[in-house]
């Protein structure tokens, strides 16, 4: 997938400015950046929830700008939400089944099988029959992830899933994300939790003021002077 010169303005403010970005078909990619850097807007534009003002998105050399979000889901672009919004009055199993049926276009029996696999993979089989409104917010995040994953997407954008987790939970989460990547899904993690970024170990892109500023490995990024400056402010960073 490739983004060419994507811009999006909210009023006079650029949320995204001339973003050129290439996302590989496999592996784990990480997008970090301070609040307001445009990370979530980027995911909204790619998933079609928000329309860009200019620029275009290429998928296998085809422009997909005109596609409505439900069509993008069907051609393999999946995402989760920072604040998960599962179907509250459906069970966990039904939540994930919906992803398999509609994004994944699977036949009923295959979809049920896929749902079972996803539940197992994410380690949430034990809550399969619970209603989503009975879950904790952490469990909801996994249900949302499961729904996105069940459609067997090519690209899975995970919008901040690591907030408020303990050390061991982060390692567990990182292992699950790596497992997803091994299925041949290109995973893009968008977030703040540096501990998780380190654990995942993919290429990191730092966003600032609506465009990608620098790309590198975890070590390169945390030692980069410009990155330190945008996080801590110019005056606190000695060159």
């Amino acid at each position: 997938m490739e983004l060419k010169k994507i811009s999006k303005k909210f009023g006079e403010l650029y949320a995204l400015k001339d973003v050129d970005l290439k996302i590989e078909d496999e592996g784990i990619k990480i997008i970090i950046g301070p609040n307001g850097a445009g990370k979530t807007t980027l995911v909204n534009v790619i998933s079609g929830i928000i329309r860009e003002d200019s620029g275009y998105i290429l998928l296998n050399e085809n422009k997909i700008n005109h596609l409505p979000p439900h069509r993008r889901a069907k051609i393999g672009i999946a995402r989760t939400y920072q604040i998960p919004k599962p179907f509250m009055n459906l069970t966990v199993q039904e939540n994930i089944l919906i992803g398999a049926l509609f994004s994944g276009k699977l036949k009923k029996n295959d979809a049920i099988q896929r749902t079972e696999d996803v539940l197992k993979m994410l380690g949430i089989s034990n809550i399969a029959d619970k209603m989503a409104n009975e879950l904790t917010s952490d469990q909801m995040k996994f249900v949302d992830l499961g729904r996105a994953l069940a459609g067997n997407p090519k690209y899975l954008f995970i919008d901040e899933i690591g907030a408020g987790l303990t050390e061991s939970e982060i390692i567990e989460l990182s292992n699950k994300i790596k497992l997803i990547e091994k299925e041949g899904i290109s995973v893009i993690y968008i977030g703040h939790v540096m501990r998780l970024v380190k654990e995942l170990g993919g290429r990191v892109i730092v966003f600032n003021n609506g465009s990608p500023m620098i790309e590198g490995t975890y070590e390169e990024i945390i030692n980069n002077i410009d990155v330190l400056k945008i996080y801590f402010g110019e005056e606190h960073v000695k060159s």
Partner: protein
Amino acid sequence: MKFEKELKSVLGVIVFFIIFYFLGPYFYSNQAFFVTMLLFATLTLSFNIIYGFTGYLPFGYAAFFGLGAYGFGIGVKFGLNIMLSFLLGILLSVGLSVIFLPMLRLKGAYFAIANLASFEAVYYIISNQSLTPITGGPYGLSTSSVFSPNIVYLISLILLIVIIVVTYIIKKSNFGLALKSIRDDQTTSILSGINVSLYRGIAWIISALFAGAAGALYGWYLGFFYPEAVLSITFTIFIITFTIFGGSGTILGPIIGTLLLYGIYDMVGVSFSEYFTLIFGLFILILMLFLPNGLKDILKKYFRRELP
């Protein structure tokens, strides 16, 4: 296992209505009560398709019912045969639902109010004096030339059985699951690959189709009606109450709601006609305060069972 159980209760309720159809009039010699009961059950179930599954609350739902009656009446007036008049009723109702489709872009209370306003518009258009040559205006329409209460009674039963089966099929299908997901969260539905506007539009049109058919039968049965008799907000309030009392989104809920509440309504109306709105109103108030989700919740809370 669960599948079996639900199918059994659907078959059970169909058998119940067939017995009801034959034996009812022996115990209570008021055929109008039974016809209205069957039509109300149909209307409640068709309302349930849009409200129970997708969560849209159309406060002007009676417009579909009323236009069904008017379509039939206009057909009869202009000399169409019964079959074509009946189809005209359905056609008008479905046509109206297509015109109203963009309204589904509104959410929650906005949709409910917009729908109520559009109902008023339909009412004033139909009852407009200048349209007297077509709709009869404020003076109403007569269908007495084709009056045949026994046939209407039978077709009402058949229509009810059809919508029970349709509701069952929707509930079991992927389509039904998609509708329920739309009820819970439209954005997540879209992101799951569901064409929300298409699915809810189909549900809306199916719902209007059955409401129109029920209205056409009602217009046929009445023999004569004026605008208030078929285009009344009371119908909407009744079916909303019946649906919520029984449990929305289920098959049996709306049916039980209609049987019990319309039964009570009729009983109170006959014995204490001067108090019936008061008593019925109090009853609805108590219901909404203590049982906002209806019998469905009682079953779930105290018996840990799902209402089919």
